[in-house]
């Protein structure tokens, strides 16, 4: 079932100048769980929430190593992510072979962008359904890049993608000026706090449901999973959750309303009073 007659194909423009298939592909990124990238002057890190694995199969990785100086976190269609990461690995390998130096991260990202763009302009193909957060360290310093199914890529100070990533982006925006001078531990702690904000308040980060990837000047891209996460989770253990975390249970989200009246006299006002725009529950009381 199509919503309109211009979304059958990625090669069809709508009268408003939109390509609906690309916009629909961007929705696929939101179906993945949250991933976050942060950088300081010395390190770039990725923090990602993993989906609960089946008891029968091994869990699938959210953070993938690409080269010694680059890693990615994925959100969206797993198979597309696998293809893109294989492509990125071969680009990095080729650079080391041909020029004997690591591929600058910006060039890697633009290669991914160019590859993705072809699929948005050819009949019979479809855009990639995955968003990537690319974290790398090269001669220009640490980098965080975001790529989209639209074939756009963004150089970011920090970014979060995936389901409920808005809460993580809000945290990061609030603390943005602190990141540049952070130590690695403080940076990871910030990342985990931001990731925690995407979870409902009765669920916490554990060694099973998150992983961290770190790259720095003298440290190759390393992924921390399971037990190795313990050292980082202990940095934020016992801290109060930010009040920006999505309230799962109590209170009404759309402003306060009277509970419904019993059947009785008079007609109720059909328009409920209340703010038109959703307001946050409370402001963060962070330092």
């Amino acid at each position: 079932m199509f919503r309109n007659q211009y979304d059958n194909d990625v090669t069809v423009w709508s009268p408003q100048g939109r390509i609906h298939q690309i916009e629909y592909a961007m929705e696929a990124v939101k179906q993945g769980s949250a991933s976050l990238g942060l950088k300081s002057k010395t390190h770039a890190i990725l923090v990602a929430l993993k989906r609960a694995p089946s008891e029968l199969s091994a869990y699938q990785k959210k953070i993938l190593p690409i080269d010694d100086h680059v890693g990615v976190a994925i959100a969206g269609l797993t198979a597309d992510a696998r293809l893109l990461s294989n492509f990125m690995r071969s680009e990095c390998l080729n650079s080391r072979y041909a020029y004997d130096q690591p591929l600058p991260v910006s060039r890697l990202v633009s290669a991914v962008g160019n590859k993705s763009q072809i699929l948005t302009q050819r009949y019979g193909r479809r855009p990639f359904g995955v968003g990537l957060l690319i974290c790398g360290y090269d001669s220009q310093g640490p980098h965080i890049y975001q790529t989209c199914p639209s074939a756009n890529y963004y150089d970011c100070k920090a970014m979060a993608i995936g389901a409920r990533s808005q809460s993580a982006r809000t945290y990061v925006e609030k603390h943005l000026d602190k990141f540049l001078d952070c130590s690695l531990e403080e940076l990871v702690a910030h990342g985990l706090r931001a990731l925690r904000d995407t979870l409902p308040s009765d669920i916490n980060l554990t060694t099973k449901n998150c992983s961290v990837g770190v790259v720095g000047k003298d440290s190759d891209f390393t992924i921390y999973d399971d037990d190795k996460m313990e050292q980082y989770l202990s940095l934020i253990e016992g801290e109060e959750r930010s009040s920006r975390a999505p309230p799962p249970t109590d209170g009404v989200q759309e402003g306060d309303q009277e509970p419904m009246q019993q059947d009785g006299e008079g007609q109720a006002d059909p328009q409920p009073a209340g703010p038109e725009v959703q307001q946050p529950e409370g402001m963060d009381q962070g330092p």
Partner: protein
Amino acid sequence: MATFFGEIVPSFSRAVDDDDDEEESPHVATTNVRWSPLVRAELLQIPDGKLPCQTLIVAVGPAAAGFAQAFILNDDYYIVGAIFSGMEETDVNTFDQKSPTDKTCYIYRSTQIPDAFLCLCKTDVSAEQSYSFTEQLFSCINIESKYFYMSILCSCMTSEYKCDVPVSDMNPPFLRALKTTQFVGVPPCKYLEQPNLVSGLPAQLLTYAQIKEVKAVLYICYTETIYLDSASMKIFKPLLETTPIRDLIQVNPKGDEVINHLVDMYSLKNTMYL
């Protein structure tokens, strides 16, 4: 296809194969309701053959059904009927129909409040079947009491929600309401704004209530994720303090546990999107 004057005309193929006619016997899907032996015996004794009902809650879809299972359904409820509206080959079902991921549609009744019914519809009822579903549901339930209240809970994707701000600014999941003219009461959320529409089975149920001039309210949860998550179920929680649901429930301390359990059940199938 654009015509000479530039207008767009949908082009249908007029090529017909000889085999096509034989395959195309229109299959009208019908819905069937089966009541338990207890209820069937009870119906025989009632003059008009319909069970008296004062409260009916219908939860359509996994998010609404999950919420109802966690916070409304308790040990006092027993199954009195089931509605079958066409099982697809891709539906996952266990033999005893008791797994949370089974696609079933059971009607529950409370032992303590015998005129309160809860219908958890986890099957996908197509638009063509919604009328017969509604007819079958009300074939043995009497809604003519002046205290009758119906609550319909359902969910939809935010990609179907049209508004002038980006939907991510609305902080999904969020709740919207629609009601019949007979319903006097203020829902704890906004009414569904134009040009948004509710369609399918929930719309059919509300329309039926409007035509029969009974009190009914519909709550629709707009959610971003295609997979079941706890936020999409817990967003219905404010309704526990509203008519008619508040008269039925007992506080269930295990509600959150049930929700987390349901999320785990459904999430095991989730490896396509990481």
